[in-house]
């Protein structure tokens, strides 16, 4: 039986590997257990599991579908039905970098159509096609909520604001050359499609503190307000309450609270590094089961399951 090399092009008539090797499977299963523990009901884990599969295979592979199905007790048809609904789940091996040009109305009019033409001609590929070197999958994308930075290009879903055909061509050339490329607003440099997929599955890459908090357009109104001395009304209600509380010291706190509600332990009150996990400690909420016993009873799960069955049928 011929078996397709995962990561290569799909060949008509080729069959696919239907399972991961034992070691990979064990590793992914451990990740899947962490994902499933975030939800009261397992099926909710399907979207992050599909991102996890893409972090391994670079697309939603047949063996990835089989893996999700086995993890969640679904059929492969049920998993495929979900995977094909969402545009981020790729049906053939993706390039290392998804380059998305916004061609929704506003970006298109501001120049997105010209950027699209330039990149499509330059790379020699169309929508959802990958360059021969496997570096870039080009996409026409819909509005990505950065209209004040139009025209926008996304690389692995990091923001490249205020683009031109020339700047966008420079970006893809750098990507193909393997040079680190920095988004306008985002991490210090873009990661690969697989690395990105793992973050979207909920596994932190520890890069949240990289990059800016806001770009210039985001701050336009605030800067004008600062310049003009415009402010929102002060929190007078809170100030009155605080003054009243201070007058009543030391008997502050609230009837509900076991400890003074206005304070938290000094150890946690350090301003900037507050909440920085200690080395070796939990680094991500993804590592922690979030399900509390209040979430679900067996009876509710049963009821929900039957409503799902009705929906699926």
């Amino acid at each position, binding site marked *: 039986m011929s078996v397709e090399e995962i990561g290569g092009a799909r060949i008509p008539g080729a069959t696919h590997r239907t399972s991961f090797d034992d070691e990979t499977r064990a590793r992914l299963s451990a990740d899947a257990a962490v994902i499933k523990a975030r939800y009261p009901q397992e099926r909710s884990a399907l979207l992050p599991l599909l991102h996890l599969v893409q972090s391994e295979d670079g697309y939603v592979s047949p063996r990835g579908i089989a893996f999700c199905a086995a993890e969640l007790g679904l059929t492969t048809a049920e998993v495929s039905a979900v995977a094909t*609904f*969402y545009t981020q789940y790729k049906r053939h091996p993706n390039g290392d970098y998804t380059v998305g040009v916004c061609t929704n109305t506003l970006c298109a009019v501001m120049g997105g159509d010209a950027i699209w033409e330039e990149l499509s001609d330059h790379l020699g590929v169309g929508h959802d096609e990958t360059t021969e070197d496997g570096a870039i999958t080009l996409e026409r994308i819909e509005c*990505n909520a950065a209209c004040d930075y139009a025209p926008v290009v996304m690389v692995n879903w990091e923001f490249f604001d205020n683009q031109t055909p020339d700047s966008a061509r420079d970006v893809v050339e750098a990507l193909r050359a393997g040079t680190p490329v920095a988004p306008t607003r985002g991490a210090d440099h873009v990661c690969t499609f697989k690395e990105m997929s793992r973050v979207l599955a909920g596994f932190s890459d520890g890069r949240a503190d990289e990059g800016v908090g806001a770009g210039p357009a985001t701050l*336009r109104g*605030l800067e004008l*307000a600062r310049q003009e001395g415009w402010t929102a009304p002060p929190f007078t209600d809170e100030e009155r309450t605080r003054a009243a509380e201070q007058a009543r010291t030391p008997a502050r706190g609230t009837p509900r*609270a076991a400890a003074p509600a206005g304070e938290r332990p000094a150890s946690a009150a350090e301003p900037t590094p507050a909440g920085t996990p200690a080395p070796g400690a939990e680094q991500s909420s993804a590592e922690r089961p*979030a399900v509390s016993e209040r979430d679900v009873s067996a009876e509710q799960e049963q009821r929900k399951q039957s409503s799902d069955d009705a929906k699926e049928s």
Partner: protein
Amino acid sequence: MATTLAPVLTDTWDADRSWTLGAYERAGGYRGLRRALGMQAADVVTMVKDSGLRGRGGAGFPTGMKWGFLPAPDGGPRYLVVNADESEPGTCKDIPLMMASPQHLIEGMIITSYAIGCHHAFLYVRGEVLHVYRRLQRAIEEARAAGYLGTNILGSGFDLEITLHSGAGAYICGEETALLDSLEGLRGQPRLKPPFPAVAGLYARPTVVNNVESIASVPGIVRGGADWFKGMGTERSTGHGLFSLSGHVTRPGQYEAPLGITLRELLDMAGGVREGHQLKFWTPGGSSTPLFTAEHLDVPLDYESVGAAGSMLGTRALQIFDETTSVVRAVTRWTEFYKHESCGKCTPCREGTYWLVQVLKRIEAGQGTHADIDLLLDLCDNILGRAFCALGDGATSPITSAVQYFREEFEAGTHTPADVLFPPEHSSLFTYAPRRGRAALAGVHA
């Protein structure tokens, strides 16, 4: 007096490392939570009701009232689900908010969960904003390490976990019941209502689904009180809101102002329409809200006034287009978007958006027929009010309003291509020489 800006949510965005818990706390963050935890939960709901806060995600439903629809506790779980699937064309407020100040949202989620008796909240963010996902993930970690999440929060006895959940690319998941199906691991298709999520939402349990900006507005309301919030805006459209200016405007960006400000005032702040050009048409609240023109410059941007003028306040996504822009090209592109994003569940939307694109494309190419305008309007009439959810209704808004204000451009589509009437290189922000013939985009496969 002219309306001025009112930075509340945006107020911390220029701070050093504004996204960190430390920066947020230095600016007064989490004082709202402390105050809320000292109140009865029902009183927090009442306070938000009294504030008049209305949903900032587009529909404008009163937030406190939505919370009040939850049935009495029955011992089972109740859920808060935050809709961070911002993808309405033109809308770009929640994403920068979560990038610059995710703690604002997290504090709002904790207060809201306390108010409605929720112990497990979900944050559904669209999958196409990687760095925002990272920031939210980190914000939840920081809040947990500081004791704002977990068990016995700040000694109050209140417990809460937040699960961050990434979508995977589907506009329809911004519809609240489609979002719930997506969060349950299904295709994101809207559910029949009733039952509403308040009664049977996530996992068929009572659920509140709110927009990011709505929830992020809650800490301020708790700190300032209902009257503080009502001190901004109009009588029935209270408070502050993010107005997102984009397109042919000198200084596009986020402008946080009291509801009721006008586009004329906002344009004045943003340096006007780009130099040498005039306003042609604009959207008050994203592409699903009927277009406005220069005659609407003085419409107060509040729910009632925009409605009375024939559109909707929506998400305050003010997309500005000048006289170089073909309205036919703009509307065709939006319609292609709705066709692409239609979930396929209901016939009017699935088939209707397909046919709308067919007709619009030939008008854009200058090959329309004299019956095409009526055909478009008839198609819209068969979608509006007949689709399963608001996506179908929204798809008709740009078309019917564009025909209303610019009928002659559609008529011109019977003989002249849109890109001849309005060369695209005149609209773009950079100069370039178009390399192709009309209406042909390189690499686009039909």
